[in-house]
Structure formats: C-alpha cells, structure tokens
C-alpha cells in the first residue's frame, strides 16, 4: 500500500488531507511540524511526503532539505502544501529539493489529482 507522510501544523488541514488520502486507499502518517516529520521519516519508509511550508520548529523548506540528505528519501516525491503561490516561494521549494507544490486553498479532488502526478 502507498504510504504517505502528511506534515502540517494545522489540525484541520492535516486531518482533511489525511482523511482524503485514506478515503482514496492510501496509508497515512501525520506529523505536526518539521521536527516530528523528520523523525517519522527517519523511522519509516514513505512513498510520498506532503508538507506545509509555514510551520513552527522546522518549516517545510528545511524539512525538505533534510529529507533529501537521507538516502531513502533521495527520490521520494515531496509536495509542498502552501498558500504562497509566488514564484519566489516555489523556487525556494525547488531549490530545497521539493518535487512540486499544491497551492492552498485546494479541495480533496484537486489534492488527489495532484497526487496522481507523483505516485503510481
């Protein structure tokens, strides 16, 4: 089963993303910030990471940079979940090694359509 790590400091968004993914048959693990996300990533294997950018403790950009340093996450798709649709923010994500992004607000349909582009 496809395993997805969902990192967001907002309970409602995290729950919504996770619920949507589970409804679509994915297995999800949740983390509330970059630090917890990194720890969970180190402890398991994931087929996809979806992370918010603005978070306390460790933000999504830093998480992405750290994840790319791990051998098991070298090719893993990482999607940044963010309201920042500015080119600058996208560049920061790409530079850190993110695969792509999903601009908030989004609905479950858009989320699933986007995920189809990174997992089989």
């Amino acid at each position, binding site marked *: 089963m496809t395993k997805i790590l969902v990192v967001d400091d907002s309970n409602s*968004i995290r729950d919504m993303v996770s619920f949507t993914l589970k409804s679509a048959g994915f297995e999800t693990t949740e983390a509330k910030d970059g630090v917890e996300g990194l720890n969970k990533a180190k402890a398991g294997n994931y087929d996809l990471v979806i992370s918010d950018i603005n978070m306390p403790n460790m933000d999504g950009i830093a998480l992405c940079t750290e994840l790319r340093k791990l051998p098991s996450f070298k090719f893993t798709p990482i999607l940044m979940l963010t309201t920042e649709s500015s080119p600058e923010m996208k560049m920061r994500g790409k530079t850190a090694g993110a695969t792509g992004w999903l601009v908030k607000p989004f609905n479950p349909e858009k989320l699933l359509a986007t995920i189809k582009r990174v997992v089989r």
Partner: protein
Amino acid sequence: MSIDLSQFIPSFLEESFEGLELMESSLLNLDAGDNEIINSIFRAAHSIKGGAGTFGFDNVTEFTHLVETLLDEIRDGRRDITAKDTELLLVSVDCMRLLIEAARDDADYDQDKITETTHLLEQTLEIDGPASHIEIAKSDEDTQEPAGKIWHITFIPEHHLVQTGNDPLLLFSALADLGELTLKAKTDLLPAITEMDATELYISWELSLISDASEEDIREVFEWVEDECKLEIVELEVSPKSSSSETQDSLRNSASVDPEISDSQTALVTEQPASAIQSSEKIEKIEKNKTKTKQDSGSIRVGVDKVDSLINLMGELVITQSMLSELGNDFEISKLEKLKSGLDQLLQNTKELQESVMKIRMLPISFAFNRFPRLVHDLSIKTGKEINLVIRGEQTELDKTVMEQIGDPLVHLVRNAVDHGIESSDMRIANGKPKSGTITLDAYHQGGNIIIEISDDGGGINREAVLSKAIEKGLVDSGATLSDSQVFDLLFEPGFSTAKEISDISGRGVGMDVVKRNIQSLGGRIQVESQPGIGSKFKVNLPLTLAILDGQLVRVGTEVYIIPLITIVESLQAKEEFINKVSGDMTLYRLRDDNVPVIPIYQLFDLPADTKEVNNALLVVVEADGQKVGLLVDDLLAQQQVVIKSLKDNYQQVEGISGATILGDGSVAMILDVPGMIEMAMKRAQEKQNEHILEGALV
C-alpha cells in the same frame, strides 16, 4: 470522489480562534525587532487564511490576506512596525474574529467595520483594492479556448530531474489524461552502461498530443519541472487525423466562417447555465456546512495524560470488581477480611476515578485571563492612564462551566479597577506614586475553592463618599454606624452605581450588583478590601466545580438535608444562658460578639421534628451574605461529597432548596440553599412581627 469537508470545520474554527488569541497576545507583547514573535503572528494569520480558503470562508481569506501581507512586510524588514500598525493589526484581529464567528454562526456581521478596516489596511499597504479580483476574472476567461488542437511538445529533462522525486512517466500519464498522446523517446545521449549513473536521467522525448487543452493546461503538467528541462510546446495546424465531432469542427472554424458563428455561440452559451448550477450547488453545500457547525458543540479539549490516567483507573476498578465477584461466588465468613479490604479498594478506586473525571472538566484559568491584556491595553488608551497588568496563577484549574460564567463579572471588575481604582498619571505623581498604575490578577486554590483576586494600587475606595451616597440613595439610615466591610458591601447594592459608572459600562449592561449576583449564582462570594491611597482588592471565592458539593448531612425529623460545607461556620450545642427571645417568635443566640438568629428548619419547611426547643439543641451556624444564622437540627450525620441534581430540571424550583442528591441508600436528600433560607426566615419573621403589631393594635 466527493468528500464532505464539513466534518473538519469545527476543528478549523477551534484552531482559528486559538490562532487569533495567539495573534492578539503576541501583538500586545510586541517589541520592535523581535522576529520570532512577528513570525508566530504571521504563521497564525497564514494558517487561518489557508484553512479559510480550503473550507470555503472566502471573506475570511480575502481579509486575512491583507493582514498577512502587512505582516509579511514587517517580517521581511520592509516595514518598521509602528504603534499605529500594532493598533491596526489588533483591530484586524477583531475583524477576523468577527468574520469567523459569523461564519460559525451563519450570522450577519458588522460589514462597515470590515470595510473600514479593509480600507485602512489597503491604505497602509498602498494598494488598490479591486486589482486582485480583475486578475482572477481574467484567468477564468483564459480557460475558454476552442477545442481539438494538435500540440507538439519537446521535453528535454536535465539529468538530475528524478532526484527531486519527479517521474517523467507520471508526467506523461497526466498528459494522456488531457487527450490522445503519442511519444517518441530519444536515447542518443544515453552513455555506455559502464559510465551510466543510475540516479541520472539521460533520455529526452518528443510528444504529440491531440487535445482540447490550452497551452496553459499543458504547461501546468510540466509546472514542477519547468526549470529543470527544456520545454517547447507548439500548436500544429489542423490535423487530418482529428476525429472531432461536428460541433468541435464548427467551433474551430468559427473564427473564419461567418454562417457558423450563431452555432458556436449557442454552444458557448449552453455551457454557462451548467456551471451556474454547479456553483449554486456549491453555495448550498457550504451553507449546509455552516448550519451544521452553528451551535457550539460544547466540547472540551482534554490532555492525553488525563485520559490515560482515567483508563488506568478504569483498569484498576475492573480488577477490584473481578476480585469481589470471585469472592462472592463462594463466600465464607472466614473471607470477611478479604471482602473488607476489597471494599476499601473499591472505595479508593471510585474516589480516584471521580477525581480524574472531575479533572477532565478542569481548565487552567488562563482561558479566562487571556482576554485581559487586550482589555487593559484598550482601556488604558481610552482613559489615558498608564497601566501595567500583572497576571499570576494562570495555571490554576477551574471547572469549565464556572470559567465560562465568571468571565463577564471579572471583566467588569477589571474595568472598574481601571476606571475608578487607578488614578490619573498626574495625580499619581502628585501623590508620590509610580506614574503607571498596576492591576494584578491572581488565582489560587484554597481548600475546595478557587480564589480570584483583582487588585489595584490606586486610590482605594473613599469610605465617606460611598457612605454619603448610600445615605443619599436611601440604602442606609444616616445615623447608622457601619464597619468598613459593610460600607464596601454597599457597592454591590442594586441602584448604587453612579451616573458616571452607568455611562461607562452601559454597553455591557452590567452593574456591580449583577456581578455579585452572578458570583452568588455560581455558589461563590465576593469580598472587598481597600485602603485609602494604597489600593483596593476584590476577592472572588468560587467553588471548583458546580457538579459536586462537599456537604454536611443533617437530620430533621425523618428527613435528611444537606448543608453546603462552605457555608458552615461551626456546629454547637445551644446553652440556655446565650438564648434570647425577642418579639415575633424570633430567637437570637449569642455567639461570642454576634447575635445569631435561630432558624428552626422544621418550622421553615413545616415538618414534624424531635427537637423543637432551642435549649440544648444542635445548632449549625452558617453564613451567607455576611449574615450568620443558626440552623436548628435534630442530628448531625456524616460529611460527604454529593452529586448535585437540579430540582429545576427534574421538578421545579423550590424556595430554600438549591438542589437534590441521591444518598448511598438510594434515598433523595435536599440540598439547602442557605441564602434563600435566610431570606425566607426573615420574611416570615417580618410577617409575624406585623401580625403582632396588628394584634396589639386590636387589643
């Protein structure tokens, strides 16, 4: 797949309100250049904006976007934060709260305030409001393109493309979703197998796509890899292969062939109603969601540790229960000791379980104190007084219901302290005090109660002014001699407030008498201490919870009553030399310096009783509203905690009774409402006295 988002809305609302509180308290503590605070404020706004957009609260998103932009400029150092900005942000937080509350309750809100603040934010940001709307409308138009084109795409990815998690095959399958895709891989750059790096990508592709999609749609598929590849998208001339329907053909040719225009227009027009229906459905759905979350579900967030301890205790209870039932299966008298210890354990378990369950309802009082920094900040600007607010004991825990109901009285007391307690800066300096006044909020536990103190270092209460005003209002006789505390209690008399006070607080419609009544309805009391020139202290004493009461069980005849322990001063056996009969059947008992009226419960409730004579009888001395009375009872029974059941909900309100409970033997016992009883007794004594006077006049 359609997923109902409404289930996540309560959680979004909860975290939004938390976010707003954080924004507010951080703004109040903001020092220039403290980036971490600015960051956390920004994050809170950002989360609210993101969530609001996702859950369809567009007005919140739009408004918060402006707030976020301002915060972003401050965060990036593009703007120095001024006191004016802070004020604007605080007002903006109010507006966001207004909008989110309106979204929660599906209610109207003060549009003028939002418009005004939006305008102020736009002015500060120096932007024109409607610009963003135009942009959105334009991008909507872009998607209306004629159909059935052939696209030729050249895609030459950089070698490291796969290292960001992008997979060309998935890109192609996304393209295939748009139409008919054929592709040709070019492998000329593929190195010899010995030189090949498995983490690199050496292939490039030529693709052709027959699709209705616009160039933009196709570019979107490559959005994430745009900077890591060479991408060429070219539209080819009409394809002979195209097997599009007639309508599509006519659409495609409509630009050049006149007679077809009307046809193409109808095709375009028919699409609009469909999308209109869709969007109205969406609105309906959103409205449905709103009504669902309309009522505050009254949920509590409980720490996992509290739940864990509950489960732990439950486990112990189950063990004790199974031990006891095993004992019951074949019981012999020799096992009596074991039974006894088992029962003791059960008692212990139940008690701990009860404590744990009560703890779940307990929240730190910081929930009630949180609003005060802002309140004092606003009031100090309004009154022009400099005020420091000191908050202590904010971790002290209190029952949720008590907390909710104590909020307004506390607000009033704090307003009162700012308004009447703290002097103006000039006067303070003239009196040799520090220029800025201090208001202290403190909370702590004492016995089974929580004490909340609101103190100020202001001028204190002017005893003479209070007294003369009370005399003027006819609340006391001009000749009366009153102690300090009796004078201060006059502040809580209905109708005491001065005209100035009324205008100050008229918006809230609360006076000091209402404050006192609210506190009393929670089973609490309020005391005032004050020293001229040094300050005043209002001390609110509240029970920790409304669900359970520490009570003294007493017997009157065959009935058992419960007297709240908090009201009991002492219990004693009446001695003849201290008993004084006065007119109107009123008996006074001399208790040290006080003369305490005796209230025989049997008389009040019209019951048969063993003891009707005060001499040698048991008196329970209780106090309410500063008045002590002695309750005449037949017997003192146990002291125990009782669970309060409302009489009002289950039967009806009864004078002199505050509630009922079920005792261990299953019988129902009434809980005495001490202030109510005193009032009842005084009224009856007054009536009796009037009768006597009447009788005397007749004789």
